[in-house]
């Protein structure tokens, strides 16, 4: 069972030498950190590696956390930096990341047409599929805004840009996501017909 203590209280206990407090902190944030990592890595293994790396880095730098922002905001900045480094490393090995199609999540695509599967697919499946087709920055902004409980100012802090720029980027990301969602749903309807 997860601790009811606040993030700051858990941090203080961790700094005092109680390692299990940090385990509670991980349990509390692991799903979001992993989801954010998935926006960059696409594969579960790579995403898990990024997420683990983030928590280890956060542990090492815990004493330097100033508490001027939320712990989650600070942690997401680490995730963003780590994921960007991962992406830069990947760019050397693979083709250009500017090509949006590179990020189409192969794993999320149905391997073959199956009538029953199509019928059972939920809206959330299509939403996740569409998010997987977005560029990492767009997917990150949308995820942080809707699931990370982060304000535009906090997202700006994580990404190191102005809050107004985040507002514009969020608007564009939502437009792109809407287009992808519509396109995917149209495609599935065609397949059904």
């Amino acid at each position, binding site marked *: 069972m997860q601790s009811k203590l606040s993030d700051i209280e858990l941090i203080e206990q961790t700094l005092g030498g109680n390692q299990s407090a940090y385990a509670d902190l991980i349990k509390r944030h*692991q799903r979001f950190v992993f989801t954010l990592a998935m926006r960059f890595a696409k594969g579960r293994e790579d995403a898990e590696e990024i997420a*683990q790396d983030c928590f280890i880095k956060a542990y090492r730098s815990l004493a330097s956390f100033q508490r001027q922002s939320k712990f989650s905001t600070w942690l997401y900045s680490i995730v963003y930096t780590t994921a960007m480094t991962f992406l830069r490393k990947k760019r050397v090995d693979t083709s250009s990341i500017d090509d949006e199609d590179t990020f189409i999540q192969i794993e999320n695509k149905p391997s073959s047409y199956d009538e029953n599967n199509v019928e059972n697919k939920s809206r959330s499946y299509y939403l996740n599929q569409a998010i997987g087709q977005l560029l990492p920055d767009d997917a990150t902004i949308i995820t942080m805004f809707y699931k990370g409980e982060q304000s535009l100012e906090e997202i700006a802090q994580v990404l190191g840009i102005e809050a107004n720029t985040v507002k514009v980027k969020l608007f564009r990301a939502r*437009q792109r996501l809407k287009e992808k969602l519509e396109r995917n749903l149209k495609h599935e309807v065609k397949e059904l017909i």
Partner: protein
Amino acid sequence: MNSIEEKLWNYIDGSCTAEEQQAIAILIAKDEVYMRKYHELLKLNEEFTSMELDEPSMAFTYNVMETIRTQHAQQPLKAAINKHIILGITIFFIVTITSLVMFVLSSVNWHTADTSITIPDQLNINHVTNFFTGPVIKGFLFFDVVMGLFLLDTYLRRKSVLKHE
């Protein structure tokens, strides 16, 4: 000029001023295009909010904590060889090299055409050999052995961590 969608998103997010909020609310109530678009975006917004988070593997927390514990075990060694010692050694070598260079440069006779450097008496090889006495050499070798063991230990620890990963 903001598009209808942009205005409506700002309205939904609550990221516009109170006056703008009021003006958009009136437009939604009166203009059918605004009303239709607003309901469409509202539905989309609800869908985005209900987005599901991915779940890492069951061993995720355990793996992170294990890595942290392994690093903690190495902490005493790291503390023994702290950065101040390395800094001290660096300063020692910089000062020694700088003094030597300055001493050599100051011994050059810059006024004559002959730029050959005359080695001062203090650096005569016969004097230098006096410095390498038995205890000094033994001390130097002992220091080398300690450094060698330290490097070997670091190498083996790193190898062991990599193996665990």
